[in-house]
């Protein structure tokens, strides 16, 4: 594989990490969804590049699913839901943005140090992709922990899944799991949107998970 192919792959994977960091400082839900859609576009580009470089045509399918479902269908559906249900427009955070960003940077540094040290023998493309993928996974996790609204937690989870797909496509020749994991992410998204948010809205005044915390207090 020539150096150019490496550079493009690293550029795209690195952009994915940057967009993950951007997700962390969005304070309005609609902006958050737009950034997430952008992340899905970058993921689709990155996966198609892997498909081209590895000569693995089935990965184009993964890229197409990422583009259609995650960049278009889910953000549009969530946008509509926010409008229709009159959900709070602000992202409520458990930790302030500055601290979250610092924690995010620390996580990126951590994953790069860990992965590069561990995979000294593996192929260059795989190991750097893996470092970026782990960063995206950890940043998604961080977002789920530090956000209070259900919608932003779902976005955090989906961005975490983007990291998984990046890792899976970076592992050359990985069998059938890519398609299935994508199919499952679709299923997960449907379950979240169709059942939970709708019914939570039906029952609660807001979809804020703050309201959910009273379970512990009431029930012990």
């Amino acid at each position, binding site marked *: 594989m020539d150096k150019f192919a490496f550079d493009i792959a690293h550029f795209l994977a690195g952009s994915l990490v940057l967009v993950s960091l951007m997700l962390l400082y969005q304070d309005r839900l609609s902006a958050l969804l737009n950034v997430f859609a952008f992340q899905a576009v970058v993921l689709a580009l990155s996966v198609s590049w892997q498909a081209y470089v590895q000569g693995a045509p089935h990965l184009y399918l993964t890229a197409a699913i990422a583009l259609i479902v995650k960049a278009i269908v889910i953000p549009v559906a969530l946008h509509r839901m926010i409008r229709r249900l009159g959900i709070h427009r602000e992202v409520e955070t458990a930790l302030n943005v500055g601290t979250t960003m610092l924690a995010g940077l620390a996580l990126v540094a951590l994953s790069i140090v*860990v*992965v590069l*040290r*561990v*995979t*000294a*023998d*593996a192929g260059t493309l*795989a190991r750097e992709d*893996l470092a970026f*993928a*782990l960063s995206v*996974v950890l940043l998604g*996790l961080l977002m*789920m922990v530090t956000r209070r609204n*259900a919608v932003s*937690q779902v976005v955090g*989870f989906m961005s*975490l*899944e983007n*990291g*998984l797909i990046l*890792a*899976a496509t970076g*592992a*050359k*020749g*990985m*069998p*059938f*799991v890519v398609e*299935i*994991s994508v199919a*499952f992410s679709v*299923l*997960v998204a449907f*379950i*979240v949107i169709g*059942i*939970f948010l709708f*019914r*939570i809205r039906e*029952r*609660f005044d807001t979809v804020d*998970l703050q309201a*959910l915390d009273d*379970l512990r207090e009431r*029930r*012990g």
Partner: protein
Amino acid sequence: MSEAIDWIAANNVALILAIPFATSLLLLCLPGYRLSARLNAGSAFLTLLSALSLFIHKPAPGSYLLVDDLNIVFIVLNTLVGFTTSVFSASYIAHELEIGRLTTVQLRFYHAMYQILLFAMNLALLANNIGLMWVAIELATLTTVLMVGIYQTHEALEAAWKYFILGSVGIALALFGTILVYMAARPVVGEGPDGMIWTVLIGHAAALDPALLNLAFVFLLLGYGTKVGLAPLHAWLPDAHAEGPTPISAVLSGLLLNVALHAVLRFKLLLAANPGAIAPGPLMATMGLVSLIFAGFMLYRRRDIKRLFAYSSIEHMGIIAFAFGIGGPLANFAGLLHMTMHSLTKSAIFFAVGHIAQAKGTQKLADLRGLTVSHPLLGWGLVAGVVAIAGMPPFGIFMSEFLVVSSTFARQPLLAIPLVIGLLVAFGALMLRLQGVAFGEPSGHSEPVKASYLPLATHLMLVLIAGIYLPPPLVAWFQHVARLLH
């Protein structure tokens, strides 16, 4: 007759998967809960028969499915408790329908989901492909999320949401670990499907890159450990147990936790076969011990009876993980025995608790008093179950806990101290609660309930028999599996 048995034995693996799957489709179309409930139990019974036939005929491992000595134990236990719970579920559900907590449409959905859950758990146990195993565990998670939320009350939706979020994070971390295992395997076994087949992986385990395996195991332990309910990743477990229908609490505690544990054990074997990798045992033992002690103290502050036994499940999964973490033939034997005994006892307790909650119309511990007076059979059933789960002789859990403690003294004497403290703390909490719930003046209103005592009695009898006399073939089998586990 013998031809029928031969046919079942020849196709057992296919049947174990096909019966629940086909039944779930059928149940989705069938109206009328009586027929569905019977079909549910009947099909679970057939699955159990197919699983038992694994002892007669063990098919050779394929690239997707695998039957070996380790997973037979899990599969038989899984199908057995799946069957008894479906019998309990029939009478439980009839009452829920009567009082209008569930509609017939929801019931249809419930029965179909129950079979899908059995299918997914069997698939996860049978899978030889670590990707397939992951998919099956994800499917099992999603079905249980839907079942936990089935009452659609405020609390049920909260619990389902919490379970969904934490379960998904766990599952996602496990997928990352799975990908890392594949990346470790790729240079050794080549690209493509071989890198995910467990039998191929274990065959080449010594040649895999130890650093990648270590990293993979951390993710797999955290990911699947969330599903096992190990502290500090257990937060979903009490809510999911308390708010869903009780048959689901029984299946969650008795089976799903074991399925996730089976996944952890598979990867533990992989690491143990690689000389350069870290020892997986201490990590598991630490998480197990933390879960045991934490859950032991949490037992004191519970106000809800299902929540109480959910914390007791965390405690026992902690003991089991600890036993497998300590390792060696004796501790592994104890872990396997404890897992079996815990599944049987805990589901029996939930059978009793389910009917008790229906009879009293509440799950609050404060409102449950004098059950042995007001409902003698259920009350004494619960007493027997709690005595068993607390680890008192003559029940089987006494023996397995005794073995865990003595093997810990033999291998890591210092660790035995916190272990014994944890066991005593949990024991005290359960006895304290039991006294209030079971004895004294009955309180509150209570209505008659048509209970099915057979599943409860069967489980308690099995646990009692195991405590008094373990059949030598079973001991030999467990010893054999325990040696396989290192």
